[in-house]
């Protein structure tokens, strides 16, 4: 952790009370952010907190509805990211938006080519590219196509390009998400170099340890608001996580969900277990057991590897490390169809992207996984389809004009019920629910929570991922906390409370004695 050597440096960027709505829905309510010269400033928050929107407003991608942006003491009004770049604010995105097939030099000089007698002056541009890269002690053949280098190097090129525009402020949006540990080290070296040269950095990341390693100051956003601004060394991890989730660490409220009382006597023997599951950087060692009639909750921050683990279990992605067993026998799914045969179902968090088939009807969506079972010699049995669909519309209370209504016309909550029904119709043994109540209204949320509890009571094993703390604590019988792709803590529901879960999310262990940084 480093601080500017002598006193606070002048304010470089001062964003005040920004408001922004999309189609009437507020994305930024009251967002503020102040960055000093030569400061590395962390910007953190949960999904939908408004970080990206704020950055896009700053770089001219979106127009603000209200508020003020001062850059170097003057009002800053730009209308495109390119204009922002020319004016000293460069952004490096998670996905590197450079041209892989062109040379390093071309990428660095793109948009401000050097000319001589009206022709491109390649020698001058190569020299410029090498000069920029040498600032980070990177020596490379700048004539080679960018795509030949690894991700970290490409990221360095992106940063060199940003600085080539004489950036005063560099915004890095989750720059480490595709880097390995060594590469992260190189990136941090570059950030420190920038800092030494008086360039400020806004660093967006979900990895808390990284923030403590490289940042001076932190701004925390939640629900479109700036909720906290502090020096990194003055705020503990636990406090950080609590502020992101909007929890008061001390206060524990009454029941906030509709799961109802759990009945432990219904929990049976272990049905599914995973040991040391891994795939790439996202999942690096997840182990857990799931019993019949039990709801296992996956808690963790964004990027902790919860969804990625669920996808491995369901065969949507393939694990390259670890073992799984289902009902006592080895289980190694190559594709979702294998998981379905083994008796699993998977409700995705990305309802629109990989859940519903929008142009299809409620009935067609509901029976999508069931199709082979309701057809004879390849011909659909419409009578059986009707029966199944009507039964689930009734049982789950799906509000629609009828089985033939297009599913895209339904509300989020009812779409979610259709997806639940898609799997319940299969009569599964294990159901994976990824953010089962995200983006749906309170009423439907309660119904779905009651339904999940009811299913578990009937002997179904449920693996539930949720970013809502009360959903995990009140809903799950057993809680697994994931952190940076590793399952770090297992808690029995009786022993769990918000503080323990938050602590584990922040530190990787539930022992609150380590709470102080």
């Amino acid at each position, binding site marked *: 952790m480093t601080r500017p050597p002598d006193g606070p440096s002048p304010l470089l960027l001062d964003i005040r009370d920004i408001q922004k709505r999309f*189609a009437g829905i507020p994305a930024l309510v009251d967002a503020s952010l102040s960055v000093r010269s030569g400061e590395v400033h962390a910007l953190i928050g949960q999904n939908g907190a408004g*970080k990206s929107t704020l950055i896009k407003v700053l770089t001219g991608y979106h127009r603000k509805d209200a508020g003020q942006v001062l850059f170097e003491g003057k009002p800053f009004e730009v209308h495109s990211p390119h204009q922002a770049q020319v004016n000293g604010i460069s952004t490096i995105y998670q996905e590197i938006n450079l041209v892989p097939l062109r040379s390093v030099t071309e990428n660095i000089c793109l948009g401000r080519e050097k000319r001589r007698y009206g022709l491109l002056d390649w020698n001058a541009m190569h020299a410029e590219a090498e000069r920029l890269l040498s600032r980070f002690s990177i020596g490379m053949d700048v004539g080679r196509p960018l795509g030949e280098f690894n991700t970290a190097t490409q990221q360095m090129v992106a940063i060199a390009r940003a600085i080539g525009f004489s950036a005063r402020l560099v915004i890095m949006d989750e720059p480490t998400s595709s880097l390995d540990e060594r590469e992260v080290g190189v990136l941090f070296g570059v950030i420190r170099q920038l800092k030494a040269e008086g360039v400020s950095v806004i660093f967006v990341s979900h990895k808390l340890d990284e923030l403590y390693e490289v940042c001076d100051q932190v701004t925390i956003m939640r629900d479109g608001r700036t909720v906290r601004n502090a020096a990194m060394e003055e705020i503990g991890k636990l406090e950080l996580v609590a502020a992101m989730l909007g929890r008061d660490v001390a206060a524990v409220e009454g029941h906030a969900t509709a799961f109802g009382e759990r009945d432990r006597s219904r929990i049976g023997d272990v049905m599914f277990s995973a040991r040391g599951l891994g795939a790439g950087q996202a999942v690096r060692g997840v182990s857990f057991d799931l019993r019949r009639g039990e709801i296992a909750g996956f808690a963790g921050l964004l990027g902790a590897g919860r969804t990625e683990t669920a996808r491995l279990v369901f065969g949507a992605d393939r694990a390259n490390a670890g073992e799984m067993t289902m009902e006592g026998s080895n289980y190694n799914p190559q594709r979702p169809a294998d998981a379905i045969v083994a008796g699993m179902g998977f409700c995705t968090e990305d309802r629109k992207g990989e859940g519903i088939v929008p*142009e*299809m009807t409620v009935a*067609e969506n509901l029976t*999508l996984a069931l*199709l082979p079972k309701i057809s004879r010699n390849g011909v659909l049995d419409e009578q059986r389809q009707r029966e199944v669909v009507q039964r689930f519309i009734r049982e789950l209370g799906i509000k629609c004009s009828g089985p033939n209504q297009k599913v895209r016309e339904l509300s989020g909550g009812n779409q979610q019920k259709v997806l639940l029904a898609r799997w319940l119709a299969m009569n599964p043994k294990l159901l994976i629910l990824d953010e089962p109540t995200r983006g749906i209204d309170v009423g439907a949320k309660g119904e779905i929570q009651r339904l999940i509890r009811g299913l578990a009571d009937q002997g179904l094993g449920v693996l539930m991922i949720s970013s809502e703390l009360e959903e995990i604590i009140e809903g799950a019988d057993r809680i697994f906390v994931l952190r940076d792709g590793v399952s770090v803590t297992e808690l029995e529901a009786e022993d769990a409370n918000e503080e323990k879960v938050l602590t584990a999310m922040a530190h990787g262990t539930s022992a609150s004695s380590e709470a102080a940084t």
Partner: protein
Amino acid sequence: MTELPRSYADRDAVARSFDLFGFLSRYGTVIALVLLVAFNLAFTRNFATMQTLNVNLTQVCTIVIVAVGMTLVIATGGIDLSVGSLMAISGALAPMIFLGKILPIGSIYLNVAAAMIMSVLVAGLLGLFNGWLVARFRIQPIVATLVLFIAGRGIAQVMTNGNLQTFRVPEFQWIGLARPLDIPAQVIIMAVIVAAAAWALKKTLFGRCILAVGGNERASELAGIAVSRIKLAVYGISGLCAGLAGLIVIAINSSSDANLVGLGMELDAIAAVAVGGTLLSGGKATIVGTLLGALTIQLVRYTLLANGVPDAAALVVKAGIIALAVWLQQQHRG
């Protein structure tokens, strides 16, 4: 981090009010067809005759057969540019077999049977090759099928040394010339294929899977549908349809010219599918619509020609109709 979702209320409001564009995109083709027939009944001499009907149906047959396969491909979100070239291959191969150039089989019936089966199968296999490129290597369909679009006609020309093959083999040519019950044989074949495909798309597991893959591929995969196999199958079927259409064309012409058989067919078929109301992005398809689309395009051309408008101008009108149909779809979706 993503933007907050648009409210569903907006969409519901749009859905409830009467949707003119939706109405037109659903029934526009039928309306256009009825208007065209009415116009012709009023202004075109000798329109209401069996002969007119047969001429139009005969001309539209091969387009419809190819367009049925194309509809299935497009329903999965793909496209097949190779159909014209596959017609040329099938059209080149069949005469070589039934004229005994490859396998000297004694009986003409055996020869013809072998020719028909072999050439349609070869086209089907080449279709599977398209599907393999698309499913296995995730090559964009327009690029994957461009391979055979270009190479296919070349293969056909190499097979025939670029020579015109002429023949007079009634045992084979019934497929394009026979008229049982005074209905051209190829019209019967077309009707059977249209009926079978329409039924399959609506009533079978396969049909439902095609639409699901086109509607949301990732959701289909997660629901356990064998997406790759579905894609292989539709491109294979498209190849089979093209192979059959190639046979009909050479049977009508009593000759096979690898340069000409099926030339431009891919575009005629895509046009029929688009005008028929199938979503070009996949997930929503209608075989009957494709039939109506092909008939509409055909009838526009016939109407213009019968009323003295030159063929070149008719092409412009055809293009206009396609643009209009696609525009209507866009309005409905937007």
